[in-house]
């Protein structure tokens, strides 16, 4: 298939970014056909890789004048099909915008380009004993620009909060090429929190080309324990008990039985007992002197709720081992099933035991393997449905089970996505949580940032209802 990008436009774009940075050959576009949710695939019309704000602005001006729609993309690790572009769209990648412009240790701020990898920022801040707190599982690959678009979370967001807590200023280029400077630490503006509403807008409002980010001092010490449970409901109750006791762990993660068995059967084997039905990772960080008692109290809560064993890590190596089962869960599941659908819903944490039970019922009813590995402290579930895309009947069951899981979580007072975003995948679920008025207001806000509707079209919001004749 030949790129549908008009030749003259292609040449104009090349003049802005340089010949090497406009990709139109199908074999080079192949790398951009999907994000981390590989169930959706399509080839963009072209990929453009600008190097800074000015180039992004000139590229967007050309594209908006030509009426060509735009899809921004970071590292492509997103899990909702947010960075998908069709043949009539141009993808703007941030791969060349990888500069950490400044780390200001005194004010604990960093200024970065959007293509900087999440973990690289923490590495650059490490000499100052600072780090960037939100830590999505993909942090060694995902970009900060992508994190801004998705308002990404991660295990340690339980204590420290998600991306929006840390982004203090943005340079944004809108579809028409206008450059906006929003927010900025150290100033109080008499304006709306435009940085706040931009974070999580999934590329539908514009492209962030510079990001001002708050850094935190690295905690002095970290302590991790692992509770082993025979029933996942008990692990869920332990989570509530720990939080209700006034403890604030840095992370509280549950790995369920099917996941444990997948991990233990893989090269990532972490030494979790394979007959267990849940493992609960509890991590505390902060001042050394406070941690022993926190760990003790959490251990008691786990035992009270029925943990058969609670392991404590004494060394950094042991800590990594306890985390192994959590961190390698997705990799391990990839080995036992050809396809994996990662869901991402949030429920009030006290409802976890009940909702987990209902999800396992749904799995049984549709004869599907569902493995749960998730941010329990935040009530942020990740039920993973294992399937084989070649099996049409199974695909159909996956879809129905998926929808039922979403509805169950919403019914329990939760929502359809905690950190992966809506993208293209959850557009149709939006009506589970919002009515027409809310969706219309969101469309209206998008139209303020993007009146021509050229930014990441067809994402996040379902199509407006067609007026009845």
């Amino acid at each position, binding site marked *: 298939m030949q790129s549908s990008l008009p030749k003259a436009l292609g040449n104009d774009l090349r003049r802005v970014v340089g010949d090497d940075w406009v990709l139109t050959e199908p074999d080079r576009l192949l790398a951009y056909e999907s994000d981390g949710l590989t169930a959706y695939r399509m080839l963009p019309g072209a990929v453009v890789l600008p190097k800074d704000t000015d180039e992004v602005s000139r590229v967007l001006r050309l594209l908006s004048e030509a009426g060509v729609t735009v899809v921004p993309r970071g590292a492509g690790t997103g899990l909702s099909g947010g960075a998908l572009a069709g043949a009539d769209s141009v993808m703007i990648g941030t791969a060349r915008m990888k500069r950490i412009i400044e780390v200001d240790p005194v004010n604990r701020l960093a200024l970065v380009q959007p293509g900087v990898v999440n973990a690289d920022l923490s590495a650059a801040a490490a000499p100052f*004993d600072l780090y960037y707190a939100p830590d999505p599982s993909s942090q060694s690959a995902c970009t900060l620009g992508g994190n801004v678009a*998705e308002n990404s979370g991660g295990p340690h967001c339980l204590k420290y909060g998600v991306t929006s807590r840390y982004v203090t200023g943005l340079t944004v280029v809108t579809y028409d090429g206008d450059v906006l*400077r929003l927010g900025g630490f*150290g100033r*109080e503006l008499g304006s709306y929190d435009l940085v706040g509403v931009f974070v999580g*807008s999934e590329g539908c409002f514009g492209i962030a080309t510079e990001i001002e980010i708050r850094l935190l001092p690295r905690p002095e010490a970290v302590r991790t324990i692992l509770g082993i449970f025979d029933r996942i409901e008990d692990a869920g109750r332990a989570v509530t008990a720990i939080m*209700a006791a006034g403890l604030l762990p840095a992370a509280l993660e549950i790995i369920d039985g099917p996941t444990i068995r997948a991990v233990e059967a893989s090269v990532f084997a972490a030494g979790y007992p394979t007959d267990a039905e849940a493992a609960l990772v509890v991590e505390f960080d902060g001042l050394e002197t406070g941690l022993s008692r926190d760990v003790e109290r959490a251990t008691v809560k786990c035992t009270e709720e029925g943990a058969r064993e609670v392991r404590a890590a004494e060394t950094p190596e042991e800590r990594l081992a306890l985390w192994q089962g959590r961190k390698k869960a997705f990799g391990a599941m990839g080995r036992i099933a050809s396809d994996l659908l990662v869901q991402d819903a949030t429920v009030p944490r006290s409802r976890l035991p009940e909702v987990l039970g209902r999800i396992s019922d749904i799995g049984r009813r549709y004869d599907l393997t569902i493995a749960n590995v998730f941010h329990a402290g935040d009530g942020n579930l990740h039920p993973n449905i294992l399937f084989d895309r070649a099996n049409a009947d199974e695909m159909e069951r996956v879809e129905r089970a998926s929808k039922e899981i979403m509805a169950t979580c919403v019914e329990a007072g939760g929502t359809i996505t905690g950190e992966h*975003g809506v993208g293209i995948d959850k557009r149709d679920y939006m009506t589970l949580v919002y009515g027409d008025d809310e969706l219309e207001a969101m469309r209206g*806000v998008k139209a303020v940032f993007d009146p021509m509707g050229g930014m990441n079209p067809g994402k996040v919001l379902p199509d407006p209802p067609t007026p009845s004749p």
Partner: protein
Amino acid sequence: MNAILARLSGRLQEGQVVDGLEAERWAICDRVPKAVAFPENEEQVAELLSIANEEGWHCVPCGRGTWLGGGSQPRGVDLVLAMTRMDTLLAHEPDDLYFEAEAGVGLDALHARVSEHGQWLPIDPPGDAGGSVGAMVSLGCAGPLRAGFGTPRDHVLGATIVTGDGRLLRLGGKVVKNVAGFDLLKLVAGSWGTLGVITKVTARLHPLPEVDKTLLFKCRDATECATLASLIIGAPVLLAAVEVLIPGDREEGQSDSTPLVAVRVLESAAAVSQAESVVTEQAGTSPFRCLEGEESRAIFANVQSMEEGAELVLRLSLLPSRLPELATMAQELVDLCDPDVGWGARLAGHAPSGILRVMISRLDRREGGLDRVLAVLERLRLSLEAESGSLVISEGPQDVVGPLGAWGDVGSAAALMAGLQREFDPGAILSQGRLGP
């Protein structure tokens, strides 16, 4: 009876709408409303706004009347919608650490309820402790604890608003992680009643700390305080608040009017002494006093009420590292005080946020004093803005706020703001002019 009262009286119960003397207490930035309505539910709010749209009345929503003086004076104040009758705490889920409240619930009432379960909402805005939850979110107000816990936008999980044209929007939810759709809640927090009337708020709670301790460091003057505070905020530990406190030079009834840096440490009993030594080491000097428990809470309650009795309250800001410069600049403002009346000028700074509040008891209006005040403030605002900082007049007389505006330059946000306002309030009836350039 005025026309607004006549139009509304059939729709509302007796006493739900007042005018004349009774409306005076609800003046917004000195502008007395023609009428004040006290809706009891969301339907009434929507109905009031739809009538206001028909009649072209300018409306200003408010909570319990705590922060009526802030922001720029609205272009018109025909009808104030006060939320005092919508004051039910709808839910408190201790296990899930959140509450849901009608907008008119006072922060003091909320704290009384949630503290029974060892929880709190760690926000300490200036002013009366009875300010409402809805107003706090609407104004985005916060105090010293913003250093450790953030501002209302970081706590709110969900809210219901009635837009200017009467649409009821349920935004967010009750879970801490939620990225379903665009985050319109962020727009609502700090929107100063220009996008809609907040009717319900859901926000997360925190466990009450085991130990509440404040370390007090004594300094010679404001600049020394600011220098010490900027040093302390570099401590490798998360501090709840680092506040610079400089009393007015003519404070009366104060046993001790020394400039202070107050460092608030909220920790577990096991960790608090280590936190204390980390701070002391970073400061390079020992605190001259440590307050614990009730005393620690009390000094920060004093910080909340510091603005009381001030004619002019300013918020200057720059990056935290430049707090000493801010403190020096604030000295120039001290000269704007009337030397004969009042307690002079107080300074209070949220060091980790780079914000310095300046409270002036009485402005010196003798011999062209007002012109001098305006000239000094304008020059200072421009020079702060040139350095990516800001000067906000958070409360002041209209002959100062009027000519200067409460807010400074909003840069490239202006066009987006106007567009968003049209989106939520197409009839342009809500708090017009209160926020923005």
